[in-house]
C-alpha cells in the first residue's frame, strides 16, 4: 500500500492531472474484474455503471479500477493477484466462472476483501458472494408476455442450461400461463452469454416459428434489432436497452448492483465488512424493472406493476404452489413456496413447458 502511493502519484502527475487526488489520505481502492467488455450494453455494462455509481457516491474517498474481457481460469487469477498487489482493498469478481480463482487469490491475501458474483463458495472469511433474484423480474415480464402475445407463441433465447436460466424460463412461463392458458414457449439454447450474430439468428428462428414476443437471457442488443424489423416485441435484459423503446423493447429487467456495491465499499471504509451471502431481488432494488412503455395496454401495465409490488412487499413468491414438474410429479403443494436451495439447483422444467433441457 505505502509503496503504491508514490507510484500512483507519479502516474497521476505524468498523466497531467496534477497532484490533487492521490496525495490525500489513503482512498479505499475498489477493483472490478469483468468477463465482458464494458460496452456490451448488458451484464458487464451494468457492473461498470455500478462501479461508476460507487465513484460518484464516494468521490475522492474511493478510487476504482477495472480490467475487462478477463477469461475465466488462470487469467482471472492473475488479474486478481495483480489487483491485490496494486493495493486494492476490495475486489469485485463479476462472473460465475471466477469462483475458484476468487477463492484461491483470497487465500493469499487475507487482508483484501473479495466479492464474487453469482457463486456459492466462500472458502475464506474474506470472501462474500452476491447474486440477484432475476426470476422475480422474469415473473413480471412473463405476465406481460402472456397478455401481449397474439400468436400464443413466446420465444425465449436462453444462454446455458444452468439453474439461473432454467429458473427464469420457469418463472416467466408460469406467469404467462396464469394469464393465457394457451401460451406456448419456444426455447432456443445458444450456449453463449454474448454473441450478437448467434443471438440475432436465434431471434429470427423464433420469429420464423411464429413467436410474436421474445425474451432473452443473453446480453447483446442484437435480438432487439431483429425484433424491430419483424415488428415483434421483447424485453431489455441485464441493462435497460432503452434505445429500443417504446418498441420492440416494451419493458426490461435491469441488474442494479450500485446499492450493493456502495454498501460493501462503505463497510470496508467503516471496518465492518464481513463475509456474507446476498441474494437480493426487487425489494432492495438489485433487480429493477425498466419503464413499461405505452406499447403495453394500461391495464396490463397496472397488473404487472401490482405483481412487482407484491413481490417486493414479500406478499407473493413467484414460485407458489401448486406447481408440478414437467414430468407431472408434484413439486410444490397448494400454497407452498419454493425454498432457496431447490431454486439454486433448479434443473427441471415446470409442467406445460415443452422440449428438454439440453445436457
Amino acid at each position, binding site marked *: 500500500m505505502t509503496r503504491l502511493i508514490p507510484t500512483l502519484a507519479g502516474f497521476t502527475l505524468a498523466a497531467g492531472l496534477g497532484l490533487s487526488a492521490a496525495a490525500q489520505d489513503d482512498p479505499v481502492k475498489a477493483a472490478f474484474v469483468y468477463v465482458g467488455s464494458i460496452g456490451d450494453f448488458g451484464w458487464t455494462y451494468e457492473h461498470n455503471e455500478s462501479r461508476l455509481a460507487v465513484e460518484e457516491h464516494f468521490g475522492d474517498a474511493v478510487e476504482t479500477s477495472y480490467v475487462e474481457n478477463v477469461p475465466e481460469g*488462470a487469467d482471472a487469477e492473475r488479474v486478481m493477484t495483480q489487483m491485490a498487489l496494486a493495493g486494492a482493498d476490495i475486489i469485485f469478481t463479476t462472473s460465475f466462472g471466477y469462483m475458484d480463482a476468487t477463492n484461491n487469490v483470497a487465500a493469499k491475501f487475507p487482508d483484501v476483501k473479495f466479492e464474487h458474483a453469482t457463486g456459492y463458495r466462500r472458502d475464506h472469511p474474506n470472501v462474500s458472494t452476491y447474486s440477484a433474484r432475476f426470476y422475480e423480474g422474469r415473473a413480471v415480464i412473463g405476465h406481460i408476455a402472456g397478455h401481449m402475445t397474439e400468436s400464443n407463441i413466446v420465444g425465449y433465447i436462453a444462454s446455458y442450461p444452468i439453474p439461473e436460466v432454467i429458473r427464469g424460463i420457469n418463472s416467466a412461463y408460469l406467469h404467462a400461463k396464469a394469464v393465457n392458458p394457451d401460451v406456448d414457449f419456444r426455447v432456443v439454447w445458444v450456449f453463449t452469454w454474448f454473441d450478437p450474430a448467434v443471438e440475432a439468428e436465434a431471434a429470427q428462428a423464433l420469429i420464423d416459428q411464429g413467436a410474436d414476443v421474445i425474451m432473452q437471457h443473453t446480453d447483446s442488443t442484437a435480438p432487439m434489432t431483429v425484433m424491430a424489423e419483424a415488428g415483434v416485441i421483447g424485453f431489455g435484459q441485464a441493462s435497460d436497452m432503452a434505445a429500443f423503446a417504446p418498441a420492440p423493447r416494451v419493458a426490461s429487467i435491469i441488474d442494479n448492483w450500485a446499492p450493493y456495491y456502495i454498501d460493501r465499499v462503505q463497510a470496508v471504509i467503516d471496518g465492518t465488512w464481513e463475509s456474507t451471502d446476498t441474494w437480493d431481488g426487487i425489494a432492495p432494488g438489485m433487480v429493477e424493472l425498466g419503464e413499461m412503455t405505452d406499447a403495453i395496454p394500461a391495464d396490463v401495465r397496472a397488473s404487472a406493476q401490482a405483481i412487482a409490488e407484491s413481490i417486493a412487499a414479500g406478499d407473493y413468491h413467484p414460485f407458489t404452489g401448486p406447481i408440478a414438474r414437467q414430468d407431472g410429479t408434484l413439486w410444490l403443494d397448494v400454497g407452498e413456496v419454493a425454498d432457496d436451495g431447490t431454486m439454486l439447483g433448479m434443473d427441471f422444467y415446470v409442467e406445460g413447458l415443452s422440449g428438454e433441457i439440453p445436457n
Partner: protein
Amino acid sequence: MIRLEPRPVPSRLWRVAAPVLAVALTMVAGAVLFALLGKDPLAGLRLIFWDPLFDPQFAAYARPQLMVKAGPLILIAIGLAMGFRAGVWNIGAEGQYILGALAGAAVGLAFYPSASPFLFPAMVLAGALGGWAWAMIPAILKVRFNTSEILVSLLLVYVAEKLLAAAALGWLRNPEGAGFPGSRNLARHPGTDNPVLIDAIGLHWGGVTTILAVIAAQILLARHVGGFQLRLMGEAPRAARFAGVVPGRVTILCLGLSGALAGLAGLFEVTGPAGQISIDFNTGYGFTAIIVAFLGRLHPIGILLAGFLMALTYIGGELAQLMLGVPAAAILAFQGMLLFFLLAVDVLTGYRFRFGRGRAAHGH
C-alpha cells in the same frame, strides 16, 4: 520515386532485424494510441514492458507468470512452425488445444478419485492423442480429397468449442457442482494435477515439455534430414518431390505433430493453471500462437523469445488496464499491430527499396 526491387537472396540481416524493428514500431504506434486515448504514453509502455519484469511491486509475481502464459504459446507455435515451413497451414490449433484438454481431463475424471502415479502420464498421452486426432481430420481430408486444411482446421475450432460446452454442461460436469457448469478441479486433486515445480520461474510440466519441444525442434531443423525436407517442401515443392518427399505424408506428419503439441498444451493448462474444464476454457492460445510462430520467424529460438514477448504484452496489458484505465481493446490493438508491422517490415527481407527514377528498371 521509391520502388521495391526483389533481392537476389533474402537478406539475412533483415530476417533478424525485422522482428526487432516491428517491436520498435509497435511501441511507437502504441504510444501514439495511448496518447490519443488521453493516457500518458510512456507510463503505458512502462507498464506493459518494464513493470512486469522489474517493478518491485509486481515483478516477483509477474515473472513466473510469464512462463505460465508463454509456455502454451511456445509449445503450440513450435508445432505450427514446422507445418508453416512446409506450407501446411494449420489454423485450428485452438480446436486441437481444446480436444487435448478434453481427452486428458476425461481420462483423469474417468478414474476419479484415483491418485495413481500412472494416471497423470496417461492423461498426458490422452491429451496428445486428442489433439493429434482432431488435427487428423483436416489432414486426411486434405490428402484424400484435397480440401483446404486452412478452412477445415479453422472451422473445426468452432465444433471443438461446442464439444467443450457440451462437456462442461454434461458428460464432464462436476456431480458435486450444484448444477453449475464445469468439471471437477483437476489441479486440486493429487494424481491429476500439474503443479508448479519451480516457484521462482513458474515452471510446471507444460513448461518442461515446452523447453524439450524447443530443443527437439532446433535439432530437427538444424541437423536432421526431416527438417531439410520440411523446408524443401515449403520452398520448392517440385524439387521436394524429386528428392523423394511424399507431400501427403508431410501433411499428415505436420498436422499430426502440431495437433499433438496443441493437445499437450491444452492438457497441461487444464490440469494446472486453469484447473478444470469450463465452458470458456479456451482463451485463444491457439490463435495467438500463429502470431508467435511468425514473430519468431518459424525458428525455435525465435519462437521462444516471441512467446515471452507476447506473454509480456498480456500481463503488462492487464497492468496498463488496471493502473492507467486503458481499455482492453487498446491492448488487443497493440498486439495486432505487432503482427501487422512484422508483416510490413518483412518486405525488407525479400525486397529492397530503390530511390530515384526507373533507371534500374533496365537492370544492371
